[in-house]
């Protein structure tokens, strides 16, 4: 399908303000090029990332979600990322259990000095998602005229 050939992945990156967002910044400052398919949402902490955010991203057309925070032990709020670690170990398994490709949710610890790691993580994810193709699970179409259909199909 012609649409498919034009398809570019959409990746939503939830980056913690204190480490990973700074890491992304550093990647930019160092003129490291990384895939433009990632859209970054700055969050105060990886611990702030509610599974509902990730679900909403998939519903609205994300092909992958990257959650990125400070390395364990380095959390600006002491333990936010430790909580996030437990939460996402469970949530990722749950997503796979109901039929998501596990690769579509990536969690990575990236510090403010790891610009290269940020660029590399995004590129790697972009490659994986290009191989997987668009996400269809839970995806919604924008409600509007195109959405009008007879209930009985």
């Amino acid at each position, binding site marked *: 399908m012609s649409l498919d050939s034009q398809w570019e992945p959409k990746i939503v990156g939830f980056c913690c303000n204190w480490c990973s967002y700074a890491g992304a910044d550093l990647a930019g400052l160092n003129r490291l090029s990384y895939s433009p398919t990632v859209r970054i949402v700055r969050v105060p902490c990886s611990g702030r990332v509610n*599974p*509902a955010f990730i*679900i*909403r991203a998939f*519903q609205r057309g994300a092909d992958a979600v990257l959650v990125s925070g400070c390395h*364990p*032990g380095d959390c600006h709020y002491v*333990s936010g990322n*430790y*909580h996030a*670690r*437990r*939460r*996402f*170990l*469970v*949530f990722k*398994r*749950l*997503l*796979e*259990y*109901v*039929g*998501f*490709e596990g690769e579509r949710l990536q*969690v*990575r*610890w990236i510090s403010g000095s790891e610009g290269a790691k940020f660029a590399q993580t995004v590129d790697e994810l972009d490659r994986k998602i290009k191989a997987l193709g668009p996400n269809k*699970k*839970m*995806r*919604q179409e924008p409600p509007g005229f195109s959405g009008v259909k007879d209930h009985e199909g």
Partner: protein
Amino acid sequence: MRETARQLLREREVGLVIGYAAGSEAYWVTPAFIKEEAQADRLVWNPFCVNSLAKYLINYHHEPYKVAVVVKGCDSRALVRLLQDNQVQREKVVVIGIPCLGVVDAKAAALKIAPGTRILGASVTDGEFLLQTESGTLSLPRGEALCAKCRYCENPTPVLADTLLAEEVAAEPAANIYAEVREVESWPREKRSAFWDGHFQRCLRCYACRNICPACTCRECVFDQTDPCWVAKAHNLSENTAFHLIRAMHVAGRCVDCGECERACPVNIPLRLLNQKVIKDIKELFGVSTPGSRLDEMPALGMFATEDPDEFN
């Protein structure tokens, strides 16, 4: 049980006893809220007492009096969770524990017991549930009639009780509790996806699973909020899936595996299979027990250990 309830009410130790009363069919019971000694005769205990009554305690936390509640082993885990969350104050509840040999799945029983039948008495043996009815004794083979959640029981005896109404029942040696979860895990991704899609698309969003759940105690539920609106009111596969995933994560580490959500579901969505997946994973990952088994073990996702497994480097 009736005598215990009478005594508690007579001596004014409690203002209310929450137990079971006979239901409108032989295989159903209905929660009973007994405030007067004379009403205690309405209480019953039989193999159809499947409902978990612990959550009703929340409705009475403003009352000046103590409340007594009848709990089975699985229900006692729910009570522990409510105590841990300070939803219920320990000094305001009297726990009437009933060691339990397993309860009957009403859906299975309904196929065997004619409507309108009255149960006069019941007993449980290793192999069957024996029911005395007006027209003789009826046997329900354990293999067919036992509730799915009782096929392996971690706590036949309540983990917490002020009075036990029977001899303690020893837990069976650990079996492969999560065999069904492992079965689903072993399927190819497409099959898992189709399986859950098939179930979730059927969801009516009646919220019975949430309302009956002892882990769901929020004053304002995220699913009732309109701003922000994390799950739209529309009933469709995407929103229904969002509902079930968010719910599974909200009760992760707090779900006590009482199976009430699955029992309440009017369209037979295997919700226990979803929640058990999370329980199995948190047990394996963080070495915790089934939530509610121990009063001193707080919910797994509310705490952490620096040495937790890490897959995110």
